[in-house]
């Protein structure tokens, strides 16, 4: 099984502040990997580096066997890595449908189009002409996920998609996500909620202060191991 994305010794900086200290990471095709960690552990930094929003040495991020570290974000999404960003980041002056269409900006071919997204989230079809930011939190998250799918990615990255949502809505979102990956997608899920992260993923990484503090098969890791890796001692 060859890796779709492999990251080796990734270091990342905000100015003089170092946020990542040599992270190693791998994900194979059709795998779902969760990343957990406390606030400030470096999860979002890690994702921003993969998606090109932060600079990195080219060879530290290998995707489909090619170095993509430091490529601009718009090139990386065209290569098939899409992100559902933390806080959703919908475009406030665009309608729901226009937000979704922005996802298709790269014109990457694949199975996802407006009709498929509306099939997955029927409520969005009803609200297609409303401003994206007038929707409820859960519905906005659906738009953000749909928008990422519209780029027909090979690798979908979800950054804290349950943040600030009601438990019932979180359940609904994750059920949709299961349907999505069942269609043959690779996904990285970043979660604060360890229970959810363990349940949806096959493997799990825990970050702590910019380093990988634990990794393994989600079903085999014990609660004690995780809390130790999560909080340190």
């Amino acid at each position, binding site marked *: 099984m060859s890796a779709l994305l492999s990251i080796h010794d990734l270091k990342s900086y905000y100015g003089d502040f170092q946020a990542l200290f040599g992270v190693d990471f791998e994900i194979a095709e059709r795998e779902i990997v969760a990343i957990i960690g406390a606030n400030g552990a470096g999860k979002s930094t890690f994702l921003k580096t993969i*998606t*090109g*929003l932060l600079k990195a040495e080219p060879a530290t991020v290998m995707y489909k066997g090619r170095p993509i570290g430091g490529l*601009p*974000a*718009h090139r990386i*999404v*065209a290569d098939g890595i*899409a*992100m559902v*960003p933390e806080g959703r*980041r*919908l*475009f*406030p*002056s*665009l309608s729901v449908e*226009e937000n979704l*269409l*922005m*996802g298709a*900006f*790269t014109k990457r071919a694949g199975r996802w189009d407006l009709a498929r997204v509306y099939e997955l989230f029927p409520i969005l079809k009803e609200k297609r002409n409303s*401003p994206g930011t007038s929707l409820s939190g859960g519905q906005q998250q659906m738009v953000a996920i749909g*928008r990422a799918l519209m*780029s027909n990615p090979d690798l979908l990255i979800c950054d804290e998609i349950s943040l600030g949502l009601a438990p019932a809505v979180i359940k609904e979102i994750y059920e949709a996500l299961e349907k999505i990956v069942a269609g043959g997608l690779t996904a990285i899920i970043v979660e604060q909620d360890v229970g959810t992260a363990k349940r949806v993923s096959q493997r799990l990484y825990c970050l702590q202060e910019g380093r990988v503090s634990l990794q393994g098969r989600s079903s085999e890791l014990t609660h004690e191991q995780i809390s130790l890796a999560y909080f340190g001692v």
Partner: protein
Amino acid sequence: MMIWVDAVMQGVLIGGLYALFAMGLSLMFGIMRMVNVAHGDMVILMAFLGLLMTEAFGLGPFAAMAVVVPIAFGIGYVLQRGVLNHTISKDPLRSLVVTFGISIVVQNLLLEFFSADTRAIASGGLESQSVALAGNLAAGVLPLIIFGSAVLLTIALQQLFGNTTIGRAFRATSDDPGAAALMGVNNAHVYAFATAIAIGILGIAGIFHGMRTIFSPTDGPAQLIYAFEAVIIGGMGSFWGTLAGGVILGITQAIGARIDPGWGVLLGHVTFVLVLLFKPNGLFPKTR
């Protein structure tokens, strides 16, 4: 009574020209939050390019437009991609200082090549033709053409922004450049394309300005003021608002000039200050 109707009509027509000056300014501010201080000098630069086409190559003014607009578009693209993109930051001072510098450079290059003489673009008698209207009124053919162009361009820009992929990308990038990049939008290109359109419009506006009146290399800043005032009066983010802002500015100037010839420009400025005082977002700000 009739002289006031006439003043309003002439004001509306000149307002079309102000709107042409202002559209690009509004577009650049809307998408990049960037104020192009050299915008007025770009008007004059395009007027001189038009003059060059008509005098050196013997083109008619509208043929000159067909040549100058693509040149202006190219200048806008290269200027943004090569220089102004590097000034975009949270600090608005950077782009202000750089475009201020460009303003000085453009003025001095024009002085160097064309001298300080006032010039005009020959429009083959078009400038003196008029259409007779009811009640002894007459509207100049050239001002009518200019106003018509402004309306057409407003419709075109509104369509471009509302109903095209690049228009959506413009609005998305304006909302959140980082998120737009995650969608595959190359911000550097989108910004350059926006400025290309903004300066491209000046290819039309500059030549109309040169056909309508005389101009000289240091006239730019005055045009910039009118463009600014039209944008502020109309409200940011709507091209119809910008057109309305230009028209309102034109009307107040024309009415002022009828009261006293020295009051025309002044009354325009006063209107601008009043709008800024009582409706700082402009009269027709973007609704959503």
